[in-house]
């Protein structure tokens, strides 16, 4: 099987305090330390697990981004991905959801994938719309919030996380699958993995390689407009309940009131 995983390089959420540029209203991505999205590491782990259980399969990581994004792909290779594709082109700068999905879909289409893994959302933009848009561009079914995934014959079968547990959902292949965050045990690269990453196939594509017109992507093709940005509401202080014999009752009431029970 040909399995793909879409990944993204983002400002390191562990060390960088996200800032929005008031002029462009976009996240500041220059001059900060960039890493493979930690959420994508889980998704890669899920894809590796499936590849290994299926056997005779190839896993490719694909990313759209500036040249620096090859570091994120190298990390994916170090984790155990077999091959990487970077789509990089100056005309892609400023792409919105539509442009990003159009570009990734164009690259994926050339590869005839059987399965495409995406994270539910990225840890920087959090729109969560790219996977759905990729599925739409490719005319493929999408399975979402998977916490477990198996291939049975020509079907993908997932356990889909719900508010109360999970439901089993299936679709024909090929399909796009999004992974519920934290559902798969992380895979940490070994030093040997890091060293062999350099020897794995790595290709870089431009817009013309994909046959896309610069007007369809990047700033030029963006349909999404950020109208304004503002501060998130500060979180209200929590409520401390002192146990005078009835704490459990009070907590149960509280949860009930917020429809969490």
């Amino acid at each position, binding site marked *: 099987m040909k399995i793909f995983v879409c990944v993204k390089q983002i400002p390191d959420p562990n060390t960088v305090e996200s800032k929005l540029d008031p002029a462009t209203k976009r996240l500041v991505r220059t001059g900060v330390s960039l890493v493979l999205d930690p959420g994508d590491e889980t998704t890669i782990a899920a894809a590796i697990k499936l590849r290994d259980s299926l056997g005779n399969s190839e896993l490719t990581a694909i990313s759209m981004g500036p040249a620096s994004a090859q570091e994120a792909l190298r990390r994916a290779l170090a984790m155990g991905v077999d091959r990487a594709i970077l789509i990089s082109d100056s005309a892609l700068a400023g792409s919105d959801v539509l442009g990003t999905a159009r570009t990734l879909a164009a690259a994926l289409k050339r590869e005839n994938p059987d399965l495409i893994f995406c994270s539910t959302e990225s840890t920087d933009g959090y729109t969560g719309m790219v996977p759905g848009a990729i599925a739409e561009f490719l005319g493929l079914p999408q399975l979402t919030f998977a916490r477990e995934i198996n291939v049975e014959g020509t079907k993908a079968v997932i356990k889909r996380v719900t508010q109360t547990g999970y439901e089993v959902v299936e679709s024909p292949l090929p399909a796009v699958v999004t992974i519920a965050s934290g559902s798969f045990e992380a895979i*940490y*690269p070994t*030093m040997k993995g*890091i*060293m062999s990453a350099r020897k794995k196939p790595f290709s870089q594509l431009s817009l013309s390689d994909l046959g896309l017109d610069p007007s369809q992507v990047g700033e030029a093709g963006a349909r999404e407009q950020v109208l304004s940005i503002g501060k998130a509401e500060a979180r209200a202080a929590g409520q401390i309940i002192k146990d005078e014999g009835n704490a459990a009752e009070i907590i149960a009431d509280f949860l009930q009131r917020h429809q969490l029970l």
Partner: protein
Amino acid sequence: MEMPSHADEERRLLVAEIRRFVERAVLPAAQQLEHEDRYPSELVEELRRLGLFAATIPESYGGLGLDLLTYVQLIEELARGWMSLAGIVNTHILVAALITQYGTEEQRQRFLPVMAEGRRRGALCLSEAEAGSDVQAIRMTAMRDGESYLLNGAKLWVTNGVHARILAVLARTDPQAQPSYRGMSLFLVEKETPGLHVGRTFAKLGYKGVDTAELVFEEVRVPAANLLGGVEGQGFKQAMSGLEIGRLNVAARAVGLARAAFEDAIRYAQQRRTFGQPIAEHQAIQLKLADMYTEIEAARLLLHEAARKKDAGGRCDLETGMAKLFATEMCQRVTLEALRIHGGFGYVKEFNVERYYRDAPFMLIGEGTSEIQRLIIARQLLQRYALDEQPS
């Protein structure tokens, strides 16, 4: 700007990965493991999986073939999390280096791939109760008996003495030799060999979690094929050259530990307020921070230079001696300054600086004391600057 080479780039990625490992797995666990003086089995397993025990073993024998310049940076990262971890790696890498450099081809093939795997780890047995700085005073004997040698004696202070499986043991094969070092040989001894057992272990001021043990040898029969290099009388020189790698390791540990102390201190100095302002605003504290960082940087540069020199081949007593001396003395000063900056909180076990301060002194002693390093350095200098003719 110079473009980073492949090797530089790879080194950066490897070091970054070990830093991530330390932040993810070591920092959250170190304090408790150290206070319980517990062997960190889970962390050792992670080190194994990451490949630390294969680091400098050549690729042709199943290792990663990393150079020492990379190795010392990995060790700095480990020691920044917990100095003891770097000690678990040290004697293993040292013994593997001895086998790589001096072993016969058969010995390399027999030991190195197994060692690279990391389950059978190495320990170095030079010191004895009556022989530390003066290695030539050892009493352990190895007498030829047919196709094997019989080892008798006791080794003290063996780091990893309980957990290691492959021991490099210095013994006298010719007790009559003059000078005595010419009659010494190194043997590769497997821990399971009958007659070999662990004697006492030590409770220490710091450097906890790592086993420091006495190993007792009673009529331990070792095949002649385990004489390092296959020729008697080379052991002392082999051991001394191996210690250069040990000194790089200890210097790297000192840099890592000092860096941890500095990082804690500069954070604390900006949080703690006295007389209406953070103590970091007091000039007396600023002077300390400036000196600490300057000394750490200086030690790291000496260390990297020594590692480069050793990578280039040949002996480098002088460079590794200077790096070890400067880095460990620096670490002693910096950990004390970090403790002072923490005031009373620096003296209690809730804070990491208390551990750093107890971990630092060991490094003044292990792999040759500061006094011995100075002797080594001076001896090299006097050779280098020897007068052509003696003044009359």
